[in-house]
């Protein structure tokens, strides 16, 4: 850092870079500590003067408020920690599905901006410009009050032949889903096994093709068979159940999502999707022109060129940026409270309201979201490493 030499002892202390380095750090640390102790000291004094305390004991008290939807059984006399858990599960349910859908939409819209159909290209651009330049909260209101309530009526309405949406009897969006019967579960297990087998087969095929110069024909046939079996399993083994309107005006069967869940999911997915589309577009543009030309020279058509040459290389640029978009989606899911979906933030807000404990509740919220984001970062980093390894 600093030039050291035999003249070292003659440098006066105020001209020694190391002294200033240390002094500056000590000062910075002291300032931070001073600031924090003052702030927390004030908070504790204020709390004390108002006869309040700082501890987490309240988590064991009965919450006594209701939560609209829950994956685990929850009753109003359950303790606060369980209410938090219900909220957390609702958040996770939202963001995990959100990740999958937003990635699909984002990649789709990103690639569509390179389409040779002028209309498709324009729609993709308009979508990105429109969504990115309006506030998410406004979009959520529009989704909930405009789209969802516009579609859902007193009678179940059928969309795309298989989806039902209704406001009555609890309301919800019903999509086809497989039944939880043993046959269905077995098929599901088999499908996962098939997916793993396909990956193994694919690698094996590449391996033998590269090292032995084999044609890879047997493996390709095996893959094809596997594919056909999987399709068969998917359509018939999973025991799909289609929602049906009942005579009482309700809907049975299928998977029910509440209207709030559908609205917040749609809002988050389309919002984040626009940003991902932009990342995908930039990623594809970053692939050097020579790659496009080489691909075209090989006689690949536009679809194959994108799928085999450009997109895999673009992924290396895309994946690191996706991380922050996923984190944004997770954090933005807290806006659920504006349209009545009981996520962790909404539950925490109600808890704060009933208990009057701002600091404790905030610590719980912050810790939850930090953990969620940490997990996302770790997952994305390992995915990133996997993509990087392919570089030879």
């Amino acid at each position: 850092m600093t030039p050291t030499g035999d003249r070292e002892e003659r440098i006066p202390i105020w001209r020694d870079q190391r002294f200033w380095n240390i002094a500056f750090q000590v000062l910075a640390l002291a300032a931070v500590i001073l600031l924090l102790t003052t702030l927390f000291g004030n908070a504790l004094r204020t709390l004390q003067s108002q006869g309040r305390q700082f501890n987490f004991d309240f988590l064991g008290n009965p919450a006594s408020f209701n939560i609209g939807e829950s994956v685990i059984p929850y009753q109003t006399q359950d303790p606060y920690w369980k209410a938090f858990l219900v909220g957390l599960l609702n958040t996770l349910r939202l963001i995990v599905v959100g990740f999958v859908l937003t990635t699909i939409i984002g990649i789709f819209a990103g690639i569509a901006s390179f389409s040779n159909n002028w209309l498709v290209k324009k729609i993709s651009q308009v979508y990105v410009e429109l969504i990115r330049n309006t506030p998410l909260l406004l979009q959520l209101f529009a989704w909930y009050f405009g789209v969802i309530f516009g579609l859902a009526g007193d009678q179940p309405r059928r969309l795309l032949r298989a989806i039902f949406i209704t406001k009555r009897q609890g309301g919800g969006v019903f999509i086809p889903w497989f039944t939880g019967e043993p046959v269905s579960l077995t098929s599901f297990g088999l499908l996962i096994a098939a997916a793993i087998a396909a990956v193994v087969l694919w690698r094996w095929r590449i391996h033998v093709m590269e090292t032995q110069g084999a044609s890879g024909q047997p493996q390709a046939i095996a893959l094809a068979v596997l594919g056909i079996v999987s399709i068969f399993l998917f359509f018939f083994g999973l025991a799909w159940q289609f929602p049906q309107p009942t005579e009482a005006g309700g809907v049975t069967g299928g998977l029910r999502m509440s209207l709030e869940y559908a609205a917040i999911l749609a809002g988050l997915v389309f919002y984040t999707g626009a940003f991902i589309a932009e990342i995908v577009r930039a990623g594809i543009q970053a692939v050097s022109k020579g790659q496009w030309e080489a691909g075209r020279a090989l006689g690949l058509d536009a679809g194959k060129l994108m799928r085999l040459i450009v997109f895999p290389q673009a992924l290396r640029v895309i994946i690191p940026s996706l991380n922050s978009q996923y984190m944004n989606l997770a954090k933005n899911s807290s806006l659920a409270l504006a349209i009545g979906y009981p996520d962790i933030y909404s539950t925490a807000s109600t808890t704060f309201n009933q208990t009057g404990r701002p600091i404790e509740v905030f610590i719980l919220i912050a810790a939850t979201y930090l953990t969620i984001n940490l997990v996302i970062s770790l997952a994305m980093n390992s995915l990133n490493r996997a993509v990087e390894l392919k570089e030879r």
Partner: protein
Amino acid sequence: MTTTFPPSSSAPPASNSGGLMAWLRKNLFNNWLNGILTVAISAMLVWVGMSFLEWAFTVAQWSVIPANWQLYFVGRYPNDQYWRLWAIFGLVAILSGLSWGILARNTAQLFTKTALICLGLLGVFGVIMPAPLTSRLLFLGAVILLAAAAWGGRQLGHSVAGIGRWISFAWIASFFVVMWLLAGGFGLESVSTGNWGGLLLTLFISVVSILLCFPMGVLLALGRQSSLPVVRLLSVLYIEIIRGVPLIAILFIGQNMIPLFLPQGMRPDNVYRAILGLTLFSAAYLAENVRGGLQAIPRGQMEAAHALGLNPALTTMLIILPQALKISIPAIVGQFISLFQDTTLLSIVSILELLGISRSILANPSFIGRYWEVYLFIGVIYWLFCYLMSIGSRRIEASLNTEH
């Protein structure tokens, strides 16, 4: 990402090369799949457009917009003090015009077709806006002022050297004048922040937060890249913790905890608390954007500066930071845009910015249920501002691009 090669498939529509039919065939019906796609999408667009028009002309009751015109733009700002807002508007128009003229001093034509269209649109808006005649005249006056200042700025730019620096100073000075005009004091009747609202408050909060979060973000970015372990650790902690928590939780601290943390009796205004929350939040993101720029500066730059005998502080100030900021302009403007959009979350904590005042209007018994009209209206406002910012960012990026 400077090496972008637009692939040939996204070539601009060459409508003049072979007539409309040829263009259509090339861009919409070049194979059967695209043909089907085009037809299907067109049908859908027509259907959406028709239903929207039907709604807009038969169902919608647009009276909620003109009846509350003032509320949307300035909230509950006292009626007899509107002249102050007009003064601010005029000042900003003059400064924008001057800056525009000076920036465009070396271009062939000041009033290009786009510029004229924009001015024309502003003029049309001024004519048709549902406000009293004086407001419309004042608005048109401001538009003329803008154009005149642009012309003047161009002349000045040619005759006075170093005018660019003066205009920066003028902007900085104007901020204090604007603050004085808005809040009052020093001879003007004071108007408390509780009476600011609507777009005025949205813009005020965004501008002040942007101004405050920028230096803080740069400092945090430098701190994160610093060779001093304690400073680095503190910066990393701050950045990562803030970035890990949703904004609404930060605003929650602002509303419910800041009064706890301060000594008893100190009570910052809730608008200032909101600004504090937004600033603390955005600074962490901005720091990451700037860090991206810092990391992109080749090491040779720093070594060259050392070789010239610059000390680390000067190296950073004069060599590294300017280059890093230039690289990160798109990301920084992107952050500003999201900050502008994030101000809508303040409506959840009962601050009457544009979305907040809209929700208050919707509670008025005469306008209950008119939310679709209102949300559409303010959606257009938000979209306009964000879109202009992103266009501006592209322009600045292009004009600063010294690479060939």
